[in-house]
């Protein structure tokens, strides 16, 4: 394990709740998002010709009527771009070729002088279809004689850790086998089995997806995108468009601020259209901006899950065996979603030490929109079932649900599902603190006979899901006045990355964060970052920035040693100056020489601009393992763990749930900026609570999403917040994290669904096994249980 240099000595900037360095640009309205950029009067607009059917063969596309509309410049269809692409599996095309696989899939695009004309003409493109059987759920997709959604599956290129089953609709099967699960169940005193279901969800970033492409007359392609993944996009554009002779060096991706990501703007979804349409319209910028409806039905959706969970326990509550089958509704294309299935499969036993485990995590094609990453990357989905089920088990075995969890909680050194060892963590501390804060042992009743009060708990864990060679890099440039520009391609998606990176560099170089500027990426200017996903950039990009700062510091000491003959070992930085432990009178301000150099008595100079460079790759990881058992590799860098508990008040008549109090404790390793972590807790909790109380995607019998807007797909407003939120930060250091930090962004959303389900059960005695747990569902269940 590569250890970080910055030990937790006295720190001046790390661990402090600094204000965001992007605070002013955001509250002043100066922050530019993709749709705010100006491209001049020759900008063209594209509108998409979309599939009307969930599954159909395209016989003919007639564009003649659309071409007659004044202002239409060009119409492109699948035949213009017959290239397969994808992040982890090449199963998509830029436009549908001979077949459409979900309602809303892009078949072609009309490019026009203005958006309204493009839209009007797109509606006039006639597509002649032959309908195919639409497969709208996993059960149907898994039947023996199911129609094949991807008949060519076995030929698809994919990463080596995927195992597609040709001639079926199974795009990937992650099998985990640890210990001897049959023996485990034989030795168990109790076995409990049940099935839990989770529907699809939408990210609902308030900013929609957008992309603008310009392929100029010198063959240079620039694409401005609303994205979490500029370098991954550049790589995929280059790969997908390689037949046209594009090289990485000629492709530039610029990502201004984005209005929320949550995984939805990771990888490449509609942004490929910006690149492709620019190629089609050489010399002119082309803009594609999704409508709110398209944002719902043609970006990644959180996948649906049917989880069959089986748990074997000894009389004393020790979990001895677990056998889970997770059937994921992954949608029409799984180039990203299959890795959600993979990551969830590896960890679907939850944060527990279980000797015998069997997990089948199955990625299943359906004729619904493509699944993909969403904050939590599969963990929210399987933990709804698992954490609900553990409460049912506790109830049946008459054990306190917290005791059951504490007894089985994973500890440092315990063997993970793939054979590696669990990292140092504060899970037990989190359980203890949450238990105390929510007053677990205090049974509460409402003075209103119509109201029932209940409490619920859930544990959570999650590891970043990333390829073993996912890396981060950073440049750090000093300016004449001693201020600093840091160049990274980690993306500011609201989490506060820019601020925390400034704090990390500030700590090493003793330059305060307000004198450091960090901006959003431009691949021409900023060095490589894999993607801003998986709660890994504070950790990975943070290490790169830390090492760039150390590199700059060493250059500074070099110059001082060379120019002034100071003993290098005695030098240190303090308050923006170089000082010496042996010569206490010596103090040289950074601003005096970090560009200009240090003048020698003969008038010559030593030094030159200080330019730090840093890089980080987790060299200890590997995705290679036995496909039948998942044993042998080291796919996960570390797990972040925690516990959350809630107190709810339910109306017995209407089923409406109010949340007087919620507590979340998370072990962040080291809180680099506690206020920003509290922000992640407050925001993640509400996003998670919304998935269980309000949201879900509704499809009709033809596979069409029927609530693709904020009127029918309700996300919480300021009226829906819990009365009280108690964030608890735990710090058990991550040895290879910057100052001991590990990621926290996704984790705060993960425990919400099961803890509310458990609280509803505690309040009313009803167990709801399918999300969402809406007021209507609670009221109907209550009626039936009377």
């Amino acid at each position, binding site marked *: 394990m590569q250890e970080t240099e910055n030990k937790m000595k006295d720190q001046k900037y790390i661990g402090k709740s600094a204000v965001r360095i992007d605070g002013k640009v955001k*509250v002043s309205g100066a922050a530019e998002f993709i749709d705010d950029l100006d491209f001049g009067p020759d900008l063209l607009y594209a509108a998409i010709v979309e599939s009307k059917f969930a599954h159909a063969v395209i016989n003919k596309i007639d564009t003649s009527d659309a071409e007659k509309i004044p202002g239409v410049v060009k119409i492109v269809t699948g035949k213009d771009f017959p290239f397969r692409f994808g992040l982890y599996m090449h199963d998509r095309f830029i436009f549908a070729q001979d077949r459409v696989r979900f309602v809303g899939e892009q078949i072609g695009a009309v490019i026009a002088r203005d958006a309204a004309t493009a839209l009007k003409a797109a509606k006039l493109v006639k597509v002649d279809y032959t309908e195919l059987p639409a497969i709208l759920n996993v059960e149907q997709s898994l039947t023996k004689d199911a129609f094949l959604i991807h008949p060519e599956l076995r030929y698809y290129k994919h990463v080596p850790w995927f195992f597609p089953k040709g001639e079926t609709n199974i795009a990937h099967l992650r099998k985990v086998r640890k210990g001897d699960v049959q023996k485990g169940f034989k030795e168990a005193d109790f076995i409990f089995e049940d099935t839990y279901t989770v529907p699809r969800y939408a990210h609902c970033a*308030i900013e929609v997806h957008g992309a603008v492409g310009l392929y100029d007359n010198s063959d240079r392609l620039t694409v401005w995108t609303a994205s979490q993944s500029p370098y991954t996009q550049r790589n995929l554009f280059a790969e997908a468009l390689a037949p046209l002779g594009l090289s990485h060096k000629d492709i530039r991706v610029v990502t201004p601020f984005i*209005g929320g990501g949550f995984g939805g703007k990771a990888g490449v979804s509609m942004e490929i259209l910006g690149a492709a349409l620019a190629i089609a319209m050489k010399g002119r910028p082309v803009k594609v901006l999704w409508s709110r409806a398209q944002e719902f039905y043609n970006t990644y959706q959180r996948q649906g899950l049917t989880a069959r969970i089986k748990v074997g326990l000894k009389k004393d509550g020790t979990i001895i065996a677990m056998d889970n089958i997770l059937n994921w509704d992954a949608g029409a294309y799984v180039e990203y979603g299959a890795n959600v299935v993979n990551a969830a499969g590896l960890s679907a036993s939850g944060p527990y030490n279980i000797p015998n485990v069997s997990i089948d995590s199955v990625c299943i094609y359906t004729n619904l929109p493509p699944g993909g990453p969403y904050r939590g990357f599969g963990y929210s989905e399987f933990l709804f079932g698992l954490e609900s089920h553990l409460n049912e088990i506790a109830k049946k075995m008459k054990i306190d649900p917290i005791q059951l969890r504490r007894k089985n909680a994973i500890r440092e050194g315990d063997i993970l599902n793939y054979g590696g060892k669990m990292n140092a963590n504060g899970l037990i501390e989190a359980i203890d603190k949450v238990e105390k804060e929510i007053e677990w042992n205090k049974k509460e009743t409402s003075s209103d006979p119509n109201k029932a009060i209940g409490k619920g708990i859930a544990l959570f864990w999650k590891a970043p899901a990333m390829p073993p060679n996912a890396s981060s890099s950073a440049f750090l440039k000093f300016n004449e006045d001693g201020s600093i520009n840091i160049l990274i391609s980690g993306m500011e998606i609201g989490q506060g990355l820019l601020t925390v990176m400034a704090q990390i560099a500030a700590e090493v170089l003793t330059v305060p964060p307000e004198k450091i500027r960090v901006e959003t990426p431009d691949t021409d200017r900023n060095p490589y970052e894999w993607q801003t996903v998986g709660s890994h950039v504070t950790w990975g990009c943070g290490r790169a920035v830390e090492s760039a700062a150390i590199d700059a510091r060493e250059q500074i000491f070099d110059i001082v040693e060379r120019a002034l003959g100071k003993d290098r070992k005695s030098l240190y930085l303090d308050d923006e100056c170089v000082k010496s432990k042996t010569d206490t009178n010596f103090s040289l301000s950074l601003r005096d020489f970090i560009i200009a150099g240090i003048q020698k008595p003969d008038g010559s100079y030593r030094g030159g601009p200080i330019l730090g460079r840093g890089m980080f790759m987790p060299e200890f990881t590997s995705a290679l393992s036995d496909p039948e058992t998942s044993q042998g590799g080291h796919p996960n860098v570390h797990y972040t763990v925690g516990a959350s508990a809630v107190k709810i008040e339910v109306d017995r008549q209407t089923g409406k749930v109010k949340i007087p109090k919620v507590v979340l404790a998370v072990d962040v390793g080291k809180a680099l900026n506690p206020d920003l972590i509290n922000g992640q807790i*407050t*925001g993640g909790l509400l996003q998670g609570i919304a998935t269980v109380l309000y949201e879900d995607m509704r499809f009709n019998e033809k596979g069409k999403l029927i609530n693709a807007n904020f009127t029918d797909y309700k996300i919480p407003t*300021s009226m829906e917040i819990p009365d009280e939120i108690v964030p608890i930060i735990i710090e058990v250091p991550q040895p290879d994290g910057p100052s001991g930090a590990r990621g926290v962004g996704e984790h705060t959303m993960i425990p919400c669904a099961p803890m509310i389900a458990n609280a509803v059960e505690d309040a009313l005695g009803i167990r709801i096994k399918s999300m969402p747990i809406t007021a209507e569902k609670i009221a109907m269940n209550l009626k039936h249980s009377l």
Partner: protein
Amino acid sequence: MRQEIQFKLNGEAIALEVNPNEVLLEVLRDRLGVKSPKCGCDKGDCGTCTVMINGKTIRSCLVLAIEVDGQEVVTLEGLMDSGLTPLQKSFIEHNSFQCGFCAPGMILSATELLAKNHKPNKHEIQEALSGNLCRCTGYSPIINAITDLTTKKK
């Protein structure tokens, strides 16, 4: 059939020919280059296009440009004649926003509230902001910034 309208935008007199079906949000963003109002849903659900007409917040995606003839329109840009307002400063201090996309609309709604009610309670703040969706913050850091500003001793 284009029609000339005259209105005040952030204090500046504007005269402009518009089509009767042109929406205020488009005119502000695409023709006048005022980019703080954003389009998040195009049907009045999300509040990112919030602007003020005669001191009252409205959804500029639901208003036709011809309707503002003779009116006074203020966007976030128009609040900062003498730099950031105390409210904006409080939002910075509290790290209230994450991605910042909802910020312009949210700030206008909060500004409208404080113009009418100098010491709003938590529920009043929640109600005033309920038309502005935010997916990042869980709203509490925004509400806290307003509460702190209005309860601070002068």
